[in-house]
């Protein structure tokens, strides 16, 4: 999966977790940009992404997630080694 494909696969996950079909994400999107992206929603996002991509994030990685681009890069590393 390319990073672009990962980003478009993440899009419906964001829409579902925040229950908002109007959400648009790009690699620069941060928690500040999305209403409701609190720590609770963050765990939900992480778990939903883990299920979708069949990966598991390390505790340290969860701490360092800054924006969607970083999220995508992490998934990409896990999927493509």
């Amino acid at each position, binding site marked *: 999966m390319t990073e672009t494909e990962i980003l478009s696969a993440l899009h419906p996950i964001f829409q*579902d977790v925040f*229950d908002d079909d109007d959400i648009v994400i790009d690699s620069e999107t941060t928690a500040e940009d999305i209403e409701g992206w609190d720590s*609770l929603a963050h765990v939900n996002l992480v778990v939903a992404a883990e299920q979708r991509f069949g990966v598991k994030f390390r505790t340290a990685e*969860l701490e360092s997630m800054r924006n969607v681009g970083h999220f995508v890069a992490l998934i990409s590393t896990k999927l493509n080694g």
Partner: protein
Amino acid sequence: MAELHWLPRHADPGAALNAAKAEPDPGQRLARAIELAGYQRDFVLTTRLDRFASKALSDPDPARKAGLTPLRVALLSSHTVDHLVPAIRVAGLNRRLALSVHVAPYGMYRQALLVDDPELTAFAPQLILLALDARDAPLQLSLQATKGEVDEAVQARVNELRQLWRAARERFAARVVQQTLVPVDPPVFGSYEGLVPAAPYAVIDRLNAAIRAAAREEGVLLMDLAWQAAQGHYGPGLGDATRWHQAKQLVSPELAPLYGDHLARIAAASAGLSRKCLVLDLDNTLWGGVIGDDGIEGIHLGQGSPTGEAFVAFQRYADLLAQRGVILAVCSKNDIAVAEAAFKHPEMVLKRGDIAAFVANWEDKAGNLRRIASMLDIGLDSLVFVDDNPAERDIIRRELPEVAVPELPDDIAGYPACVAAAGYFDAVSFTSDDAARGRSYALNAERKVAMSQATDIEGYLRGLEMQLSAIRIGAAELPRATQLINKTNQFNLSTRRYSEAEVERIANDSQAIALAVRLKDKFGDNGLISVVMARPDPGVGNSELLIDSWLMSCRVLGRQVEQAVLEVLARLAAEYGRTALIGEYRPTQRNGMVAEHYPRLGFEPVETPEWAEPDASFWRLDLHNTPETHHFIEILNP
């Protein structure tokens, strides 16, 4: 298996939710939400569904609430539970509850109960879950601690919990549910762990055993998560170390739907909404093969073949359910004589006499399930229908959405576990009357036959040779009386639900009359079948007695028991120097059958007082000239 595997799968629940959002009528939106709550759903969809359902429920028109019972649940926890709330509410919808959930600040459960929590007080919880975990309040023990030291520390911790339970009951008159501690810490000694008194697993195991014993003594319910975890229902996601360090979650988000359902079924049981009757198909459900084609020699049942043993195992499970008071019924497409003859098979665990309602014919099963409900005088929403045929299951779900229809595995070997996992019959008590109940419903069917044979109703009632005893509710009657108060929906004038402690409080009031009523007849003992509680109330006159609660099991409907009960109640009230009884009828979705109860008994209508609910009606019976009661029941005491 961390999913709701007994619920049917929806082809596209996301699209169905979007379609429901477009529905213009709020009542319809709520109905769609309840329907979707009955399908398998992951945590993301469950959270979306909750947001949608909560909006629909906030609509002010209570009639739209579609027969849901409102219940306020407070979560007091030592681990993060906020992410579980949507799943708890959605599971409530699937179990006919409109749950309001309040989460006390994380880790503050002691303060909330012992000091003061104005928000919790304002919320007035009816059910309090103490959701604790193994990492909370660790017992300060070294690994070398002796068994005696461990016992002492365990006892101290359990005593603290007892204090909290009592505070919850006394401050809020709430029913308490204690979550057992899931052993999450890895073993230190390997298999030797359980042999070292102070090893982490051994300590948690002892704590749970002590918690269960104390809960039984204190009338506290359990959310037995430790046991559920041991059964493997939660898979590896309970106590996931990453989630714990990240967010102090004991229960990972993907397990929320299951956890929510486990709590909702306890809440449903405490609100009297557990199912009462297991309706079984016959061919390929109770035995392998088709009795009409294969004959009694040809069906698979019993030792000798793996399939035959698996059917025996399912029958054994059904038999155990019957022993704890679940009513058994049969609904089969068969000739009745052929179907009944199959029960003479030597390997049948279930006997014909265990089946309270036996319906075998070639008509459609929806109609037959209606017949079964009416034969047993219970609602369709008390039925669970088990049928190996997916098409029959599908039809019943569509035609009779009130009936619970588990989605069964392909293999009969999985039936007992599936029916158990679905949690239809969760209990909040177990009394000796429960054990006799199935038999009692079966006898009722015989009584109905006797009635249809009797030429006149009076002759039938006289012929039953009924004997009634009404005694004050004491320690012996308390569990069953409380159970009846909390699970009777139809013949229930006020539908007030009380904990054992509250019933005890009313029964101990020297000015009150709280009676437990038993009925025997020539067919057998019906057990404790009615409760009536009357007490003085500032809202009625000084010399009057308000009938706070009057309820009766539908098993003894139409037998003039209420006439005999009134006779006892009126006599006692007069002996207490009371001049009148005041009756109150509070209508609910389910108690329409007693709307005319008081006028039928000769009560006169009076104005509904201001303090009462506006749709309640009030009735008065003057005790100076009590009208004659009409019944054919011998009253044994007082």
